[in-house]
């Protein structure tokens, strides 16, 4: 037995490398030239930064003085850093408001638009407009609309006899105000996704259901919603990634305040790196962020896509 075990791999190896060499000889060499830009880009702008990020996690570095190895202290610090966890909780609060709002409103409008509607492309175009506009513009504009004293949102509220809302000045409100704005900015995009999903529902299903006596509401809950599950999953995943990537919104509107109530993870990373020059710690936050995005999308796939393997 040992003889065979010793000979086996050696025998297998030679034909393997032989085959590889043979395949290389018959390979189209132009292919290597053509993928060269990608390889160069990958090595310089993905592989190198990735390795460097990993090194930074174990070091303290302010760019100016030499790097100092500190072992796991960045990671320990991250777990004890109350401000970091505030940023995570803020993101979760944002998502708890943003995702349900996004799904309900986009789906509602997509269902209406999917009916026999005139001017469909005008409406679709209007809803999609904020999605193509820079986040900087949208945020600067909404900061004005949200202004407690001079904003037109509060002007409208007081006109119809309601109390003005301290949109961005009250820590209890601010993150939800940002969530509403983000919903407004991205809704057109999700409407288009839902519309595509709705158009993929076979009409025979509705016909069969109405012959069986199911009314429109029953058809919606029994046919439309289950068939839209893949789109729903996409919406949830993309909104979650968007939530964890929040930066320009708090950067422009609130600077993370009031009382750190709108501090996002990326804004915290930015502050650690460029205000306090803690490159090692900022890279650690970057890793934590990437891991959280992976975990959340993985869980959501499992929860929402129960009958399909991940």
């Amino acid at each position, binding site marked *: 037995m040992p003889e065979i075990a010793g000979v086996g791999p050696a025998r297998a190896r030679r034909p393997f490398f032989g085959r590889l060499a043979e395949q290389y000889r018959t390979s189209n060499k132009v292919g290597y030239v053509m993928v060269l830009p990608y390889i160069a880009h990958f090595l310089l702008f993905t592989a190198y930064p990735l390795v460097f990020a990993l090194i930074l996690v174990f070091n303290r570095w302010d760019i100016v003085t030499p790097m100092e190895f500190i072992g796991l202290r960045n990671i320990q610090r991250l777990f004890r850093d109350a401000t970091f966890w505030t940023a995570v909780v803020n993101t979760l609060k944002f998502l708890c408001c943003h995702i349900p709002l996004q799904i309900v409103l986009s789906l509602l409008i997509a269902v209406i638009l999917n009916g026999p509607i005139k001017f469909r492309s005008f409406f*679709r175009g209007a809803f999609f407009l904020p999605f193509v506009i*820079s986040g900087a513009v949208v945020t600067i504009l909404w900061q004005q609309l949200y202004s407690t004293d001079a904003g037109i949102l509060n002007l409208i509220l007081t006109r119809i006899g309601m109390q003005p809302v301290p949109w961005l000045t009250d820590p209890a409100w601010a993150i939800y105000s940002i969530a509403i704005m983000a919903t407004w900015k991205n809704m057109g995009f999700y409407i288009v996704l839902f519309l*595509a999903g709705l158009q993929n529902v076979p009409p025979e299903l509705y016909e069969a259901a109405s012959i069986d006596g199911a009314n429109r509401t029953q058809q919606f809950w029994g046919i439309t919603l289950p068939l839209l599950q893949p789109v729903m999953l996409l919406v949830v995943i993309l909104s979650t990634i968007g939530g964890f990537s929040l930066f320009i919104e708090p950067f422009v509107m609130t600077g993370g305040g009031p009382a750190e109530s709108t501090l996002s993870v990326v804004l915290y990373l930015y502050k650690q790196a460029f205000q306090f020059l803690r490159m090692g710690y900022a*890279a650690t936050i970057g890793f934590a962020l990437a891991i959280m995005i992976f975990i959340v999308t993985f869980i959501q796939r499992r929860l929402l896509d129960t009958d399909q393997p991940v």
Partner: protein
Amino acid sequence: MRNLTKALGYILLTIAALTFIYPFLWMASASLKPENEIGTLALISRNFSLRGYSAVFKQIPIGRALFNSGFVSITSTASVLVLSSMVGYALARLRFVGRDSIFNLVLLTMMIPGQLLLIPMYILVVRLGWTDSYRALIIPALISNMGIIVFRQFFKSLPQDLVDAARIDGCSDYRILFQIFWPLSKPVLITVGIITFIGSWNEVLWPLIVIRRWSMMTMPQMVTLFHVGGLAGAQVAAEMAAAMMLALPVIVAYLFFQRYFIESLALSGIKG
């Protein structure tokens, strides 16, 4: 009953559409209004003036920023189209050892969130001495994984006869790609072009990190800093005017090519 739900649908849609369009109209109007009229709902004022715009031109080099943004976005978009289609072509149509591994690498690296690489990328740019230069903005954006995947998928669907016939005529792979495949790939070129251009035009975090000099800033960065840095003072009209100048090129392009924008950007979500 049917008519009632239909009417209700239209009313709902119209209200919704208004909440999406009105803020932009308000912004355009506010950029032209005198300060004391900005806190009103009216879109038209008798006192419209270009004072907000002239204030922007006086206080920040916004013309330079417009040029920078245009230059960076156009160069990187052109490069993404050429290089990504080249890689996509090789991965779709050429046979060579390691091809599938490279494709898997493209798929894998697409899943890495950009924020993870932000700090080391910044340090790399500092070490290369690229800060405050076009190189920092353009070179990392010369090729795109999304573009490679979209081109590869499309090129796989083109008939092999085309390639065979061209090869018999003695065409090189470069000529097959740029003279035979490109003219057949207009929809994909438009899609990748729009996604890349809009992404580049609207990008704000990366320029904020690698550019400090006002003369090298892009539009989103300069408009943001004009607003956040307090340079605009309390002049809301000037802030809105700066924001308008950032939004207007995209809005105009969107009005002309709406369908392409929607189809392309919806795809960008599905492709990641």
